């Protein structure tokens, strides 16, 4: 696999990340400007109606797992995450390297999740309650539980980043293995199956699982 080099020469995973960022930003800015200009009294039509339906369905789905006030704060972040991951995991269909097959990009998601959980804690629960959570319910067990809880603070985001990375990497490794064994005429037919399973199916499931785990972790960190 390729190394994580940011500048010269740019790693192919970072290049496709930047391409996805640029395309999605332009797309969302255009759609957002169009939706702002809409007349609230009329029923929207066509493409914009589809966009509004998607966002509405997403809101309804997430509020089942998250409180309303937390959703107000984190909804935009969660929607950005799912859209970027769904695009990034299926990007190899058009020939770019999937960004998450690079450990550097996957660990960036670790850092983002870590800070998201920390921000949620600072915003929604008091410091006293957080210290209580870290020490555990039973006070005389605190010397044992405190280190374990501290590890848990770091290991949850780390697990989520690594899960994204290894899932994508296993797909890339298996596809590369099959392509290197087969002649290219057979490779076309095998590719049909391989990319349908590893890119579309597993990629979308991983994006969804990352969204759900982020939601549940934020809810758990702020509830208790």
């Amino acid at each position, binding site marked *: 696999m390729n190394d994580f080099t940011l500048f010269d020469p740019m790693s192919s995973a970072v290049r496709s990340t930047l391409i996805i960022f640029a395309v999605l930003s332009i797309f969302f800015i255009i759609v957002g400007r169009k939706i702002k200009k809409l007349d609230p009294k009329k029923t929207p039509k066509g493409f914009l109606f589809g966009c509004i339906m998607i966002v509405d369905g997403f809101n309804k789905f997430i509020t*089942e797992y998250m409180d309303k006030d937390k959703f107000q704060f984190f909804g935009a972040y969660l929607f950005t995450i799912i859209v970027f991951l769904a695009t990034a995991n299926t990007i190899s269909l058009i020939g770019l390297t999937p960004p998450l097959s690079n450990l550097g990009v996957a660990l960036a998601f670790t850092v983002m999740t870590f800070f998201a959980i920390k921000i949620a804690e600072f915003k929604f629960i008091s410091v006293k309650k957080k210290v209580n959570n870290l020490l555990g319910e039973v006070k005389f067990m605190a010397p044992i539980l405190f280190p374990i809880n501290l590890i848990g603070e770091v290991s949850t985001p780390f*697990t989520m980043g*690594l*899960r994204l990375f*290894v*899932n994508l*990497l*296993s797909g890339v*490794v298996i596809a590369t293995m099959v392509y290197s064994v087969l002649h290219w005429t057979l490779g076309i037919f095998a590719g049909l199956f391989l990319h349908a399973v590893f890119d579309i199916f597993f990629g979308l*499931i*991983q994006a*969804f*699982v990352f969204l*759900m*785990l982020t939601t*549940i972790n934020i809810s758990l960190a702020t509830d208790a």
Partner: protein
Amino acid sequence: MFETVFSTMFRFAEVTNAGLAWLGAGFAVIAGLGTGIGQGYAAGKAAEAVGRQPDAQGKILVTTLVTQAVAETTGLYGLLVALILIGKS
């Protein structure tokens, strides 16, 4: 008879660092066993739950996907260790 078998075996299969790394990679992937059991158990229980309550299928599906992803983690660590070991050789 055994002497000839062992002598031929050890003449051709010499123990090297790379070979041990490949062997370790093979052992690391045994972690997939536990992942298989865990995911199968989650899927079986989900099927049971859908059979008992067909109306709640959507919510059960979401819960199953998340729990299976959590059970998958240890197997993925095994795969990661195997990949690192292959890279060593």
